[in-house]
């Protein structure tokens, strides 16, 4: 199979500023996502950190052809495959632009474009090895089994309400209404300060349907955080207290995500109401800092983030909303979810 080296080409006003290499590490979130897709279908065992064999192939730009790349097709056991679009490399392009600012080819804050190019290369330059180990043998990721409970999806999602905009092929995520209510109460309590917590849960497998489902079982309010108006810092002591809570609960739950608030109604209360209609804070968003946190703390492909915000609905009134974000092709984007009613309501409905 032909091997390729991938590069980002940065452009400003139509001129090529230069190229920046795409390293194996840059593919890690996409590989994580693809491996998980293979686990969902049963093509790979439920094991974290196993690094299955993955093939890379450029999908050439339909108009310009080689070497311009529209997407990179990743294929693993199954076969399971996924196309990683050029937009996946946006953050890398942003980081690469700093070099061109330093070289004086681009001014700080100036807009630029980028595209992905691929060139055939020798086999050793392939992106198959993503271990990232500088000193071979000194560091190794230890594969760990991913605990999963055998369940019937129909039973699990029975009476659950679908919310948000589901992306095609995404794994179902189930959140109890109780968790949303608790987080909403904490949001109100915090007023104009951001607050947050950690989501615990477990994975379910429906062997018959060859599908997994993520169930949020509870939320742990984050302690020892530093809360400011538009920033929430999770500290080392936050993570220690979360671990203590998990052990105290004794249910072997996974840290499957986190939640935090964007109390825009409070942030914007002193602004001109006319500005609320167009204010970027008064709508659903996941900031670059939020994405960075999700990437660093919750890199597993099943991890989710819940945002409790306020939007200025139809330019008439503030309204609280919930949005769930998760991994899609190695990128963090908004996704759909199911809300399970309180147990009492479910019994009444039976």
């Amino acid at each position, binding site marked *: 199979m032909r091997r390729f080296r991938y590069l980002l080409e940065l452009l400003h006003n139509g001129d090529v500023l230069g190229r920046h290499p795409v390293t194996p*590490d840059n593919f*890690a979130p996409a590989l994580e996502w693809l491996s998980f897709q293979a686990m969902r279908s049963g093509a790979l065992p439920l094991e*974290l*950190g196993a690094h299955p064999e993955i093939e890379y192939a450029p999908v050439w730009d339909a108009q310009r052809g080689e070497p311009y790349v529209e997407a990179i097709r990743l294929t693993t056991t199954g076969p399971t495959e996924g196309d990683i679009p050029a937009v996946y490399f946006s*953050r890398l392009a*942003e*980081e690469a632009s700093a070099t061109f600012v330093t070289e004086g080819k681009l001014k700080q804050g100036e807009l630029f474009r980028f595209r992905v190019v691929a060139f055939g290369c020798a086999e050793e330059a392939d992106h198959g090895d993503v271990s*990232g*180990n*500088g*000193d071979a*043998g*000194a*560091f*190794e*990721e*230890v594969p*760990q089994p991913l605990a999963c409970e055998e369940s019937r999806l129909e039973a699990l999602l029975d009476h659950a309400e679908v919310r948000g905009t589901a992306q095609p092929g995404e794994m179902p995520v189930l959140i109890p209404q109780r968790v949303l209510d608790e987080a909403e109460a904490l949001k109100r309590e915090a007023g104009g300060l*951001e607050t*947050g917590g950690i989501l615990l849960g477990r994975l379910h497998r429906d062997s018959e349907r060859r599908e997994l489902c993520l169930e949020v079982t509870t939320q742990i309010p984050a302690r020892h955080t530093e809360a*400011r108006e*538009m*920033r*929430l*810092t*999770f*500290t*080392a002591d936050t*993570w*220690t207290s*979360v*671990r203590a809570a998990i052990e105290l609960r004794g249910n072997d739950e*996974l*840290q499957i995500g*986190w939640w*935090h608030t*964007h109390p825009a109604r409070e*942030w914007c209360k002193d602004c001109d109401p006319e500005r609320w209609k167009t204010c970027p*804070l008064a709508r659903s*968003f996941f*900031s*670059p*800092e*939020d994405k*960075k*946190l999700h990437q*660093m*703390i*919750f*890199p*597993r492909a099943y*991890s989710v983030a819940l945002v409790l915000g306020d939007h200025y609905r139809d330019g008439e009134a503030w309204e609280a909303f919930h949005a769930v974000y998760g991994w899609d092709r190695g990128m963090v984007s908004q996704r759909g979810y199911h809300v399970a009613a309180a147990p009492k309501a479910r019994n009444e409905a039976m």
Partner: protein
Amino acid sequence: MTNDREQKNGSATVTLEVTDVSRQKLVRARKVSRDASVSELVRDILPQMRLPATSGRGEPYTYHVRLEREGRHLHGSERVGDALQENDRIVLQPNIDAGAR
């Protein structure tokens, strides 16, 4: 050639297990020098854990190292050979921001 530390401990290096805060990523670090400081250990282990040393704006992240066996955070200046034992498990705990700005 061995130094005093090597003679005392039998080996100049230790093997450690390092996890992230979610405990869903576990890296075994072999041949960690007993003479290294905890700060040096963190610097070397971050790329292996795929954790960044700095934010996109170039600001350094603060990582704390929690030693499971003793239930305490290690100080960056502590020496690996003094604080850690063979096969100890440590947790990398970053201070990290969420937010609109």
